[in-house]
């Protein structure tokens, strides 16, 4: 692989690591979801840069577009669930979901 690819790999690994750390350490539901978005950015960066390094940008682009569309549907569903959780528990704290009471 070209040297540029390692640069992209370096940054996308950093993005994924920051997102995973926040997923483990944070408690606000919306913030957890922002962390998932950050991980998704790292993944789409590595997808496209691998295609770029191999000279297959078109296939990588098609994959990234698919990934973004799926991501949007995921975000819409997850945010609707977060709003419903907020209506039930009156809080965005993820620890309150562990009680498993109506």
């Amino acid at each position, binding site marked *: 692989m070209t040297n540029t690819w*390692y640069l992209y790999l370096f940054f996308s690994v950093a993005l994924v*690591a920051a997102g995973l750390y926040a997923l483990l350490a944070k408690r606000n539901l*919306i913030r957890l979801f922002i962390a998932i978005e950050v991980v998704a950015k790292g993944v789409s960066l590595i997808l496209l840069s691998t295609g770029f390094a*191999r000279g297959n940008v078109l296939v990588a682009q098609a994959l990234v577009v698919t990934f973004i569309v*799926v991501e949007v*549907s995921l975000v819409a569903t997850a945010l609707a669930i977060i709003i419903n959780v*907020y209506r039930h528990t009156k809080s*965005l704290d993820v620890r309150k979901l562990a009680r498993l009471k109506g």
Partner: protein
Amino acid sequence: MIVQTALLIGLVLFSVLAIFLKDLLRAAISLAVASLFLGIVFFRMNAPYAGVFEISVVAGLITVLFILTIALTNTAEEVRESPLANIVFPLFFVVFIVIDALVMKGLLQKIPTVASGPEAGTFGEVLWKGRTLDLLGQIAVILAGVFSVLALFRKRDKHD
């Protein structure tokens, strides 16, 4: 190359800001700025369609959805985050970046490039003709998203 590196640094910086800013609204806007940087990186990698999708959908639509959710769940009681998490993060991140850089330096030229034929056709041809079954899957995912949002926001019956 320098511009690309600067854009990538901006991307990581704003993503980290999005995770660690206290105000959720500012965090959502930082995420949008990070998406903007990623979109520009895509444009510079000769992938204009991915760039357009990234900027219009991720930086535009998802940010609007986030801001809407933040407005709908406006609560006086702030979620108490663990104080240790914010203190440990800079240390964790710096150590991780150093390890990351060392691993990448060690890996340089170690991963062979698998030979691939030259690409033919346009983006439209690759997007629509190169894929068959996964298009159905994608449509199913979008429909699942639509139906789940409808189900989650349906009006409750009187008996509920």
